[in-house]
């Protein structure tokens, strides 16, 4: 399923913060975790993750440190900070408002009060 890119962008920050709240991680593992969580239905543009992580780092929501991978390559690890946890809580509150409102809309939309538009007739 294709998910609109604005929606992906809007959900990226809480997703990354949430995944990091589970424990320290790094870029590729975060992308993999998103795939797991969405059952492979949310496809990220992987390269976009890094500017996002750097923005979170600049804002102090995550802390980065260089480590080494199993294969011996340098790898940048990210861990969530206090302010990151705070930001995650804020986002969560915001999203639950949005999700709640959406849920009501879906329920109403399931029983539309008006019939759909009549099929267009021919023009003489």
């Amino acid at each position, binding site marked *: 399923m294709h998910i609109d890119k604005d929606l992906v962008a809007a959900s990226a920050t809480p997703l990354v913060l949430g995944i990091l709240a589970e424990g320290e991680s*790094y*870029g*590729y593992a975060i*992308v*993999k975790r998103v795939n797991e969580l969405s059952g492979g239905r949310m*496809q990220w*543009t*992987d*390269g*976009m993750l*890094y*500017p*996002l992580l*750097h*923005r979170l780092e*600049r804002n102090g929501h995550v802390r980065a440190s260089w480590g080494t*991978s199993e*294969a011996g*390559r*340098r*790898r*940048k690890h990210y861990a969530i900070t206090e302010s990151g946890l705070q930001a995650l809580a804020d986002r969560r509150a915001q999203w639950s408002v949005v999700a709640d409102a959406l849920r009501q809309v879906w329920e109403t939309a399931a029983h539309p009060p008006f019939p759909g538009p009549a099929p267009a007739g021919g023009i003489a």
Partner: protein
Amino acid sequence: MGGVEDQIDQWRGFVRRRGAISGADVEEMEDHLREQIADLEAGGLDGEEAFLVAVRRMGNLDEVSREFAREHSDRLWKQLVLVPEADAAGPGRWREPGVLLAFALGAGVAVKLLFAAVDGEFEQIRNLPFVVLPFLAGWFAWKRRTPWGVCAAAAALAAVPFLAVNLYPFQEAPGPFPSPGMTAVLAFTHAPVLLWLLAGVLHTGGHWRSHDRRMDFVRFTGELAMYLVLLQLGALVLLGLTAGVLSLVGVDLEPVLEDWLLPFGLPGALLVAAWLVEAKKSVVENIAPVLTRVFTPLALVMLVADLVVLLVNGPLTAVDRDLLILMDAVLVLVLFLLLYSVSARDPLAPPGVFDRIQLALVGAALAVDTVALTAMLGRIAEFGFTANKTAALGLNLVLLVHLAWSARLLAGFVRGGRPFAAVERWQTAYLPVYALWAAVVVLVFPPVFGFA
């Protein structure tokens, strides 16, 4: 697997070229790419396929790089690094400033020696370029690793005007105060042009036939002039403040200024400015082309006004050498405007409004010059050729040829028949003519006009 390594290498090189993505970011993304490839291979894809899928998932590099730029906007404001910081080896990084300082001090000592050894203001001034410019040229040669043969040839060529300026039996102008004669003044005003273009040969690292290198030297000259002006302004403020403070306690700065600060400061400023231009190349937008953008339309308005006034109020009242020099100055101005906008223009861009303005500017300059020259032609024949008039007229012709042919090429480009590269190439191809003309004025004029 070797194929995939090559492809990763290529990908890395491609990403590195993005200004907004730093080396560490590339490393981070490469780790990602490799993990992804390994996972895909474990899933049954072969190396090549895994690489292609992984790169695709990484996303469009333009978009990713734009996102990086949004996050790291400071990286696009490239920072001027005078002394390489982290990556370079310890003692080597001070080498370039050290060498430059040695050349600057050398130039200062040479000026000091000149003032000590040679009497007479005129003799000192005419030799000044010959003692300062070799140090700048030497620095070019060091920086560009110019071959010894080229250095030796340039030095030998520079020795010719040096000997001519000092050994020709110039006569002083008649009058109550002894002053240098016409040919002497012409020789010492034209010698620096010749020396500067010879220094340019060293600046090209010996590849003086290369049009790109020549254009680099043109750019260098423009930036150098700007930096020199700025440095001198700064120095002036500093000196003024110092002199003001010192005068409070009755200490006069002037002797120190004349004996030490000027002889070391002026050549020093030249070399430091040259170093700055080289160091900031590609870091900051060149300022000379920016100024040409501002002044080209203004100069066009000025020239059109001149042309109208000349045509309406003619015939010219005072027709003399001053008018010729004035016309030369107009042409030189237009030439600089042309040269520096050419130097910064993307040769592949299609003709635009600015190119038309440029063409109109050159056309207007040629028209003004033609009006002035035709008015003068009769007069010159009447009063004969003095050295000054001939020099001014000759320069006028040299400039006229340069601009007229530029106008022809530019017109062809604007109409869409010729590539812009032809305009660019003509500018650099014509440069040696200025050296030749300067050489003629320095070497041939004095004997022809009897050293008067």
